[in-house]
């Protein structure tokens, strides 16, 4: 197994030894980075998929409600569909901001330390 390295490269792999990755994986700094990433990305993923499925189910089984006219010919179904667009844009923007502020500095600190040490 140890010989099955990832794809061969023309530049020699400057990857640190596996033991170092194990040590980093167990370090408090990395555990914190992983925790903050998963704590943000996982619940948010569950939330937007639930919100999307709610919309799909309402379209299927709540025809009367979805057909309610809001103004002119704009009904609830159309407004909720547009709300899906809006929430997608907002979540993307929020994630990008959050990642730049919370994940990138920590990730870069670990990366530069590992690559300098190699």
């Amino acid at each position: 197994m140890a010989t099955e390295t990832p794809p061969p490269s023309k530049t020699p792999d400057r990857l640190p030894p596996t033991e170092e990755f194990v040590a980093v994986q167990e370090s408090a700094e990395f555990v914190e980075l992983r925790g903050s990433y998963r704590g943000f990305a996982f619940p948010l993923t569950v939330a937007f998929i639930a919100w999307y499925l709610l919309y799909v189910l309402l379209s299927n089984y709540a025809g009367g409600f979805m057909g309610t006219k809001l103004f002119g010919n704009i009904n609830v179904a159309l407004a909720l569909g547009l709300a899906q667009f809006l929430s997608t844009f907002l979540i993307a923007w929020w994630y990008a901001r959050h990642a730049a502020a919370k994940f990138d500095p920590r990730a870069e600190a670990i990366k530069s330390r590992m690559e300098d040490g190699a």
Partner: protein
Amino acid sequence: MSPAITLAAGGAASEHRTLIVTLFAVFVAATLVITVWAGRQTKDAADFYAGGRQFTGFQNGLAVSGDYMSAASFLGIAGAIALFGYDGFLYSIGFLVAWLVALLLVAEPLRNSGRYTMGDVLAYRMRQRPVRTAAGASTIVVSIFYLLAQMAGAGVLVSLLLGITSDGGKIGIVALVGLLMIVYVTIGGMKGTTWVQMVKAVLLIAGAVLLTFLVLLKFHFNVSDLLGSAASNSGKGSSFLEPGLKYGATGTTKLDFISLGIALVLGTAGLPHILIRFYTVPTAKAARKSVIWAIGLIGAFYLMTLALGFGAAALIKPDEIIASNKAGNTAAPLLALHLGGVDSNWGAILLATISAVAFATILAVVAGLTLASSSSFAHDIYANVIKKGTASEKQEIGAARWATVGIGAVSIVLGALARDLNVAGLVALAFAVAASANLPTLLYSLFWKRFTTSGALWSIYGGLVTAVGLVLFSPVVSGKPTSMFPDVDFHWFPLENPGIISIPVGFLLGIVGTYLSKEEPDAGKYAELEVRSLTGTGAH
């Protein structure tokens, strides 16, 4: 063929046909120049597979949009909305929301830990040969489903525009598309393909902006009026603006709607031709930026398809749309003709422009798909399975070029079979296969410590066989007038989209396979993958 085609093409008499062909030839010539230029700069494997990894986040965002906004988006969604009103809108929403899965869970870890293909990440901590074989197989199957949709779109466009209705003529055009894509990919590699995607994305967005503007102008920028006219012209009244016209008939069709919805939202992050785009940028941050750009561009584009679909419904008689193409695939080009004025020069010019754009779209997406499958064949199967890592870069790229020719040939043959299916529906099948076979293994590999080689194999093959098997025995293939083979009936699976069954099966089999084998996960490799995927250590 139906009289409506002659009617539509009647506006496009021979001189307009010349215009269409000229516009298209200009696009082909321009992209060939780009391809040759890119080909001269393609020296090593990183150039061929990943465009040298020197594209910026914005450039790649544009290219991702180009790869993603296929004929399915432009022709299929507009057609589905034009025929079924609100129910066609689900495609736009699912196709867009799906990007959040890619953004939050997949794009950055993939860029950090992979090199050229999806298989790089799937096989990272597993036994290389079996997992790479599986990854290669599912990459090629997903891409071929997707190719089928694009080829169907090409055939449809050609019969509308050039009045070519003979089977020989259509096959000739499909073969031309296949030939061009082989040239793009073998010569230009990823660098050439990426530039072609960018050019195409700009053209497609410009075309959509133009049509949207003209539609809104016609209704004095009153969206409510547009919707009202669409509802009344469709002959279906206000139900045209409500869910249920296509999927609301019975309990089965409602299940189909849910199945489609799940496949759309989970498919994107498992599409190999999209995933390999993230290798064209230097860092994970740039990969994130490309997804953000892509979400903005694709979202804006899908909002416009809403105007195109309802615009077509409002301005064209439903009979005319159906007569031109049963599945509505020609609604957008017909809309262009009607906006300019049937039998007027302006109408013919608009029709020619939009058709050339649609053709460019198909050509570019087909090139992207072919690149994804030939890369996976060369890098995953040829270099790592057959040659066990001893192939030189030159041999590997050579294998990729030959694979391109083979895949081109296969897609030409299959494309002829699929011409009367709605291209958006066909693409949704590719999404279902991707979500069933690729996404579970991708997520488990990245985030589940206990996951093993046998879990990966169960999940990839199980998801793949379930999804493809259910499609084979669905009404898409046989048993209905709209099926691929309408004259025979061997269908027993009632839904058109298999996602609701095959996606949970793919996820479950990953767990079952992992716990059933006695194999221990490789903890050291997982440490490598996890640290690399989150920090970018050692990323190339």
